[in-house]
């Protein structure tokens, strides 16, 4: 039995998992998809009803039949020879994606998480629809490219704007972020640029504190995140130095809703962001299907790596 880890070379969380699996004497092979095709060789033949063969990563050869589980940790893009044209490179990439990714996907192995499920689950509007079906509380949300729509939505209530995808861009030679922002009068007075693309606006949820709920299989690790500054009160990503952590108890109905949510998306792992109102209500903000957990594991002393190692080692098939 072998655990396959797809991760970039610089990934402290994957490093920690490697050490944990080694401690358990579990066979593990790690590689970055950027090593394909130069340092990774696939030799797979379809026989009767399954793919048979091996994967050779530099000097390690793993029979496909030996792969019990796959941990997908945002591996890097394929690398092809520079001599290829962009057309050839794109074609080669598609072949690699379908060929290498397809063979691995077909194996009777547990994926944590499967990249296809993860990609589907990363779409915020779909997340809200699924969360509602799972009985979770939500904030009123607007997605629009209409200035009039924004003014209508924000009239008479506190509203925040937040990115639908990555809140960061790289421009002017620097990396810039646009985290959650509370709309003021000056924002509503000048909404030029809303029409350029889709924008997300959400009713401000009264906030006692926030929580990051990390779910591994059916095991829950709940971290309360308490902001100590105005900026982190709006968005705790503004500064990790200005946060404190607790371990609140998750209400049973929320527990059930989150499990149902993961099942709907066919996910084995999810990192949920939630707001706890002064009334004690837990409001769903989003779920990061590939969410990092390294810092939260240490912050609340939660054995998340161990739980993931249990899951990967057990290798339950979907």
């Amino acid at each position, binding site marked *: 039995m072998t655990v396959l880890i797809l991760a970039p070379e610089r990934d402290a969380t994957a490093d920690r998992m490697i050490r944990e699996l080694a401690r358990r004497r579990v066979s593990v092979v790690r590689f970055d998809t950027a090593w394909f095709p130069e340092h990774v060789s696939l030799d797979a033949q379809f026989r009767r009803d399954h793919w048979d063969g091996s994967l050779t990563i530099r000097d390690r050869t793993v029979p496909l039949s030996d792969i019990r589980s796959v941990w997908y940790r945002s591996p890097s893009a394929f690398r092809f020879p520079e001599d290829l044209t962009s057309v050839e490179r794109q074609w080669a990439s598609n072949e690699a994606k379908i060929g290498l990714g397809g063979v691995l996907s077909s194996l009777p192995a547990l994926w944590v998480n499967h990249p296809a499920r993860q*990609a589907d689950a990363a779409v915020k509007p779909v997340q809200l629809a699924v969360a509602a079906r799972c009985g979770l509380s939500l904030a009123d949300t607007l997605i629009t490219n209409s200035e009039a729509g924004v003014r209508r939505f924000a009239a008479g209530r506190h509203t925040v704007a937040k990115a639908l995808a990555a809140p960061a861009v790289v421009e002017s030679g620097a990396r810039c972020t646009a985290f959650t922002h509370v709309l003021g009068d000056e924002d509503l007075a000048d909404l030029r640029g809303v029409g350029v693309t889709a924008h997300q606006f959400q009713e401000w949820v009264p906030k006692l504190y926030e929580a990051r709920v990390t779910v591994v299989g059916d095991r829950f690790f709940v971290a309360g995140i308490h902001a100590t500054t105005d900026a982190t009160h709006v968005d705790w990503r503004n500064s990790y130095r200005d946060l404190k952590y607790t371990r609140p108890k998750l209400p049973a109905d929320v527990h059930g809703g989150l499990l149902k949510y993961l099942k709907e998306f066919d996910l084995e792992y999810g990192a949920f962001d939630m707001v706890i109102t002064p009334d004690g209500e837990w409001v769903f903000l989003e779920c990061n299907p590939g969410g990092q957990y390294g810092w939260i594991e240490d912050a609340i002393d939660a054995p998340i790596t161990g739980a993931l190692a249990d899951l990967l080692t057990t290798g339950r098939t979907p």
Partner: protein
Amino acid sequence: MNKQIMATRRKLQRSGALLEPAVLAGAAATNWMTCVMDGREHAVTDAAFALGHQTRRGIYRARCGHDVAPRSLSTPPGPPCTECLAPTTDQIAGDASRSRPEWLRWLTGVARIHGGEPARSRTRRPVALKRAFGNESRVVRTGSPTALVPDPFAPTSSRFALVGSTGTPSALEEPSAAGVRPWGLRRARPVHAGQVGPAWSYCLERQLAVDSAGRPLIDMIGGDPSAETTSTTDGEDGPSSEDWNNDD
């Protein structure tokens, strides 16, 4: 000129405004721009790009010596400048390392796998402008040993029925004016500089990152993120940042 470029680069690096090599690696070593004056595509090295950005004149010195006033990226590119396409002296001599920007040399070093073969030194080929799938998209040879192709396994469905991409972002472009720029980006602000981690390499045998003395990096970093803030979202493509190594 080289001294001026390096001085500008050092100044930008000190101010934190210049991206670290790993981030710049996602962009191109040479950018191709169509000049509004002669309508031709010219090659502008990243160093010349940084210098042009620093002067804030919107003019960039091309490899051929032409001063480029870039045309809008939404317009089709013009015919490539033959002088920019020609190999440089360094390329003819086959001494790629001398012609490489400092960060590219660093990148090559990073690509060298601990215990593996040293990265090969390649002659940098003439850069040729390529279009990728859409009228606005431009893919540029990077000059790195191999070229990246994104989305290793992500499904087509994640692209929501789009064929190709809208464009290849350039890390050095300036924000558009209000009204053109998406409203959601108006508040984008530069992030604080993160901590600088130790030099590292990947140990094939142990399958984890180690420092120059062979010690696992995870033995030397705490649980706190290395940066003050994060700037990518988990669940998105590419490495997420809410971890220890978010700003390395």
